[in-house]
């Protein structure tokens, strides 16, 4: 299992390094969205729940781009067949794809979150950085798990770039809600409030439940 996950993950990162398809597009899209929000809201600086909402909606939409492309090479270049011929546990593909998507999300956020702080955020992002990172980490895991699952469902449909967003957004509403609620007090104008732990708990439960479900049913998406 570890060997197969390692091989798959290495391959995915290598392909991304060569093609630079997902991460740069996602990062660029995030920054453009911040600019759009600036004009759409006609605000030069955001704080509190509005800042949290803009940040999370942007990160969510950027994630959709990467999720759309996650399995494209597997279908178009025979990756699924090549993988299924090998004597390895099929769950290793799920784990590898979740880790790859997680890596993409973290790379994008390394650009997008500082850009957000620079362009739109009123209060200093430093006032609650560790808490913010904790929220980002928990939300990213959920995004990666559900994103991988939805991507795997949509990839074999004829209208995958339509199916991904319409399936993904409702499934991620509780996640965005929890992440935004947890982030809002961290970005308050008059100093960071305490991190609402219940929202971290919701995020953790969300990650756990969907992680288990994905583990249980992913195999059924592979066989023919």
């Amino acid at each position, binding site marked *: 299992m570890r*060997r*197969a996950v*390692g*091989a*798959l993950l*290495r*391959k995915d990162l*290598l*392909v991304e390094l*060569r*093609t630079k398809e997902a991460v740069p597009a996602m990062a660029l899209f995030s920054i453009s969205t911040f600019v759009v929000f600036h004009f759409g809201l006609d605000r030069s600086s955001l704080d509190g729940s509005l800042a949290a909402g803009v940040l999370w909606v942007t990160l969510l939409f950027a994630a959709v781009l990467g999720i759309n492309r996650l399995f494209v*090479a597997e279908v178009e*270049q*025979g*990756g699924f*067949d*090549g*993988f*299924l*011929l*090998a*004597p*390895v546990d099929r769950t290793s593909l799920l784990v590898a794809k979740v880790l790859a998507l997680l890596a993409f999300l973290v790379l994008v956020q390394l650009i997008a979150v500082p850009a957000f702080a620079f362009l739109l955020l009123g209060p200093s992002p430093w006032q609650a950085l560790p808490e913010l990172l904790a929220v980002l980490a928990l939300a990213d895991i959920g995004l990666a798990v559900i994103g991988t699952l939805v991507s795997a469902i949509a990839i074999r449909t004829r209208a995958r770039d339509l199916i991904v967003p319409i399936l993904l957004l409702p499934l991620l509403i509780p996640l965005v809600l929890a992440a935004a609620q947890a982030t809002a007090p961290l970005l308050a104008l008059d100093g960071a409030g305490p991190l609402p732990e219940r929202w971290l708990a919701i995020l953790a439960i969300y990650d756990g439940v969907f992680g288990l479900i994905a583990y249980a049913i992913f195999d059924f998406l592979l*066989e*023919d």
Partner: protein
Amino acid sequence: MTDLALELRGLGRRYGERPALQDVTLKLEHGATLVVFGPNGAGKTTLLRVLAGLLRPHAGDVRVLGARLPDEGWRARGRVGLLTHEPLLYRELSARENLRFHARLHGVAPQRVDEVLEAVALRVRADDPIAELSRGMVQRAAVARAILHDPALLLLDEPLANLDPAAAAVLEPLIGRSSGRTRVVTSHDPAGGLAEGDVALGLRGGRVALLAPVAEIDERRVRELYA
């Protein structure tokens, strides 16, 4: 347990309502070659994909290398090599990177990658992305992938199509008759195909239209399949 390489009894497979294979029954011994003829859409590719464990059989008793499909598919996986019209290689990665990836998946030693690259005469271009290779070179890389883990059964879908004679000569000892491997080969070329095989299978509309040792049939019987 049986010591036959292939043992199919009443194999059937549908796509939706449309039957792609019906009631295919045959046996193949280790070391022998089954050559499969049939017009396009006769079920040749479906047969190979079922034997490779990529498609579930819907009916019948199917044993590949002693493992009953689909329940025991994991026992045959990794012992079958598949060469299809698609190379099953990532275009952005080089032949070497693709083979290393498959070597890790199959638990094959990394030295074996250099060995097969040498064998398919692709050492010089081994570090160029697959997308930049010619069709013949891609096919050679695909052969390298198919034999990388030294499979006990080779499934070849028109392996020599689009290859020039020189490339075909390079691949002959690896996947040809002289390789001594157990093979299932599809072919559109009656004369060439019969020379390749020990047993000939003719498919028509997903059904067995011809099944006999090659010694007992001539080209005319094969051509009738396409009429």
